[in-house]
């Protein structure tokens, strides 16, 4: 019950007014970041069927830690939590694959979204497969840069990584991406 004790002390200390602003901070946080986290989880490899739970999980980890998270660092905290949730999700998917009757349940949901054509759907599935081949640290940087179109400085902040490291990861991620896409291209060219 350690966490309860911490919470009680914390909440007693901040008083009614503090609790109101605490809650207000929550609401702002959710509306500011939920869409970003949702997109991030998708591209970090969480399956459609697991997305809602993964998103919940990310925000509830945040819920427990809010008083420890500096104002302005929330997005970074959420994104880094999302990376871990996505890694766990991939690991547990790999485990589930061992059980044949659960294989179907763990298939990616590749239903097209509204207005989505077959080609976009196929490309997205290919993209996810290519991204699946990258380690999470490269994948995260790649997604933030190429899909979210963030700057290096923004990525460094979001991942709490020195800019030099971001740059080197991004180089490696791009190289890996190009290599996998080249293979894919070759397969398609040969009609595979």
């Amino acid at each position, binding site marked *: 019950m*350690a966490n309860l004790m911490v919470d009680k002390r914390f909440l007693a200390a901040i008083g009614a007014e503090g609790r109101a602003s605490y809650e207000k901070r929550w609401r702002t946080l*959710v509306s500011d970041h939920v869409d970003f986290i949702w997109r991030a989880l998708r591209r970090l490899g969480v399956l459609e069927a697991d997305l809602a739970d993964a998103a919940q999980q990310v925000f*509830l980890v945040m819920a*427990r830690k809010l008083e420890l998270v500096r104002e302005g660092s929330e997005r970074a905290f959420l994104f880094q939590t999302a990376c871990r949730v996505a890694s766990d999700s991939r690991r547990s998917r790999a485990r589930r694959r061992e059980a044949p009757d659960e294989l179907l349940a763990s298939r990616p949901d590749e239903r097209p979204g509204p207005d989505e054509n077959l080609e976009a759907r196929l490309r997205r599935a290919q993209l996810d497969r290519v991204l699946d081949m990258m380690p999470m640290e490269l994948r995260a940087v790649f997604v933030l840069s190429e899909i979210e179109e963030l700057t290096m400085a923004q990525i460094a902040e979001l991942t709490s990584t020195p800019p030099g490291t971001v740059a080197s990861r991004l180089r490696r991620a791009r190289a890996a991406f190009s290599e996998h896409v080249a293979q894919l291209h070759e397969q398609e060219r040969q009609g595979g």
Partner: protein
Amino acid sequence: MMTERNSPPGTAEELARSLIASARLDAQPAPDVVRYGILAAISTAGALGTTSAVAGATLGALRRLGLVKWLATTAIVGTAGVGAYVVMHRTPISTANAGRVHEPEQAVARGNQAPVAVPPTTEASAVPASSAAEESTPAPSAQRHRAAASTANASELPSLESEVAALDLARTVLAGGDPMRTLELLDQYQQTFPKGALRPEATYLRIQALSKSGQAGSARDLAARFLAHHPKSPHAAQLQALLSP
């Protein structure tokens, strides 16, 4: 399979661009169910059990949207306060009792309580590893109503005495040779006492019930996680025995 329908790829670079573009097309906002579900949970958690106007309004929105799973979740979170995310992962699943390893006690969540500097590089262990493995099975309607109804008296904290009674009952039923019913009772325990003081004991009972109901894999999985977080539990030796081949 769909190759006939696809434009032939030009260069590899064009293919790369079209892959990236497909993700941008896919950049949809989080569905309302997720947004409201998180808002509701967090609002309630932020107010630590007080039913704020925000939480009330969000609950209303959830009801209107017919988001039963989230409603059930929120109801439990209402009693759980800030430690709530632990509970989030068990509520919707409570009916899937048997096969799923939804660690009722979620020791993982409690294990990492030391204040951590920002950002959370050590947070990984606080993320319940099991949640992704848990299928969120919608609760049958009777259970939904129960869960929803429990929102009303979210502020009434059950006593340790009733907690003991609930586990005694589960233990008796298990001893009577009905592990499936025991699992149901443990699910009810979980819902009623989301922050119960006896959760480790409940988990131990669950491991036994899983084991006796022929779900050895789930039992071992849960036992391993239990041991990881309660290495000094009085049940440790027995659980080790369960884990050894």
